[in-house]
């Protein structure tokens, strides 16, 4: 495994992420996968802020941040430049869900349509965390954020479904699209390795729970991300040349087991349990399970 080969930490300690930060772990794992021969392009966001207050950068590889929404375009220019110079560094964008699903879509769409040899990784913590937990296009249905709060007129929290960004990028003709989770670090590392070694624009969306934004104890980051998978609310899969492959199969548990552990879904249980809302979220998980075929079927007893 890559992490056994790579004993040098390329994402250095001393960064200012919260204890138990999912995105910080993703950054570490990302560099374990890429090694040193990489140029990282960051968007504005939590990871950028916790890792690069001047002059204390945590990145021991070349790294650039320009703006919130232009990482894919900056990466396009870097790729063109390296091509002209005959250089071999891999180019990896690492951007939050706000930068990816919302404000950066124009630049991402352009870069993927043009077919640059870049890997774009979205660390998905399902809201604008750096600015204080506002709703993004990646925020799941029913989550309470500071801009999709609950109230008498909005008892359910975020009324909109999560945008299907992997499908959008697969539709651009991306040769490799994958979802991953920090719950399965080796799987994420392998997917990054595959993406950077696949010519053309590749996309990975890695689920990175945010203890501060979602409202759970820092020790539970991995457990929460595992529950997302075990409920079917997050599915790890790959789309290779447009075809869905290798969706991770699970013995599903009810979504409540995931929801009740997070403050962002607390309104579904207190002061009164909202069965109808929970059922809608269960239906989302059921639909995911159906679409990706992730349910491990028990063998039917012989009749």
């Amino acid at each position, binding site marked *: 495994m890559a992490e056994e080969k790579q004993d040098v930490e390329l994402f250095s300690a001393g960064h200012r992420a919260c204890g138990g930060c999912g995105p910080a772990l993703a950054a570490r794992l990302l560099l374990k996968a890429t090694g040193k021969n990489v140029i990282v392009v960051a968007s504005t966001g939590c990871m950028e802020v916790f890792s*690069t207050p001047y002059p204390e950068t945590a990145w021991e590889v*070349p*790294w*650039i941040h*320009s703006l919130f929404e232009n990482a894919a375009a900056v990466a396009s220019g870097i790729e*063109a*430049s390296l091509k*002209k110079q005959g250089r071999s560094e891999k180019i990896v964008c690492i951007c939050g869900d706000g930068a990816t699903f919302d404000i950066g879509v*124009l630049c991402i769409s*352009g870069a993927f349509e043009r077919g640059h040899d870049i890997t774009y990784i979205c660390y998905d913590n399902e809201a604008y965390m750096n600015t204080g937990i506002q709703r993004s296009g990646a925020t799941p249905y029913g989550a309470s954020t500071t801009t999709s709060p609950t109230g008498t007129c909005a008892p359910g929290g975020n009324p909109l479904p999560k945008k299907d960004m992997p499908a959008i990028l697969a539709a651009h003709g991306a040769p490799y699209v994958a979802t991953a989770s920090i719950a399965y670090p080796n799987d994420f590392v392998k997917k990054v390795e595959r993406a950077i070694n696949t010519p053309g624009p590749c996309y990975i969306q890695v689920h990175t729970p945010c203890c501060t934004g979602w409202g759970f104890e820092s020790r539970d980051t991995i457990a929460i991300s595992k529950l997302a998978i075990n409920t079917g609310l997050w599915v790890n899969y790959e789309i290779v040349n447009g075809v869905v492959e290798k969706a991770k199969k699970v013995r599903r548990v009810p979504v409540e087991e995931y929801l009740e552990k997070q403050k962002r879904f607390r309104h579904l249980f207190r002061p009164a349990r909202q069965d109808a809302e929970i059922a809608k979220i269960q239906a989302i998980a059921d639909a995911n399970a159906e679409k990706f075929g992730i349910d491990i079927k028990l063998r039917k007893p012989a009749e």
Partner: protein
Amino acid sequence: MMEIMEGSHAVAEIVKRCRPQVVSAYPITPQTHIVEDLAQMVASCELDAEYITVESEFSALSACLGASAAGSRVYSATTSQGLILMAEVCFNAAGMRLPIVMTIANRSLGAPLSIWNDQQDTIALRDSGWLQFYAEDNQEIADLHMIAYKVCEDHDILLPAFVCFDGFILTHTYEPVDLPSQEEVDAYLPAFTPYHRLDAAKPLSMGMYATPDYYMEFRYEIDRAMYRARDAFIKAGREFGEQFGRDYSGLVEGYRLDDADVALIAMGSICGTVKDAVDEMRDAGKKVGLLKIRTYRPFPGPEIVEALKGVSTVAVLDKNISLGNGGAVGTEVKSALYGTGISVYDYIIALGGRDVRKRDIAAVVDLAEKGEGDMFYGLRTEVL
């Protein structure tokens, strides 16, 4: 060799000879002929560059920013709405000290939508940290590109530049232009040596954020570089003159100013009209001259004071309007001349492509002599 060619074509030809390695641009009137020509040059193997056909101006400049950070000489061109869409990247590129050169085919800003010329677009970005050079004719716009690369890439400067010429008035006009050969350009403009670059062999974090402990110092450094660019431009302009016989060592350029009572101040192609008008007024016995501003950023305040010694009245022709406070050039000229006793009047003129004739220039001089100014010139009477 002198050739008759379109302004846009002259720009494309000289940019080709400056050897950018990455070109990224988005089509917008009246800039399109430049980038079409460059795309053809790449397609025909005349220009060894990556040409990135982006989906917006915002990505065009972002791609240039990335390529510049990775160590390439880069080029883009835009105007008007496209430049304003780039605005966020513009401030960013200057702050990151990336020596990007971009041609601006100056055009008005909407609303109302107008594709015609004024200088509102670049003036709106005067505080972005980009050097701003304005050309009077197609020879000057070609020459200024070589100077721009030289100044921007100087390791004491490291700032991007807008190289500006008036949309349609110059971009689509055929004039005789003396284009230097590739060898001559190579002799003037050395290959790009980045100050630092994204490189796995020497990791560096670029574009970090600054806390209040550092932010002001970074802004101070940009401002200092802008001031150093004054001398760098003069030096590069003088060297250009020595090699090519056309001297650009002045941030400003006077025309028949020596014994003038009234001085007009202007930027860009309007200076040609003004010179003709000055000649006619001189013939009629009026002591009038022109001070052309070539570098709006850095602003040539001391040069303006020096050039206008002995002048009693100044009329500034502003092809822009800082709504609520008059023209930007006029405001800054007044600031530069503060305490000299010279009367300065500002005229908002030629917005959105309104034509300016010699008699309009004469009329402005008459107004200035009467002490009437700080006004829009030539408005339709129904709004008055």
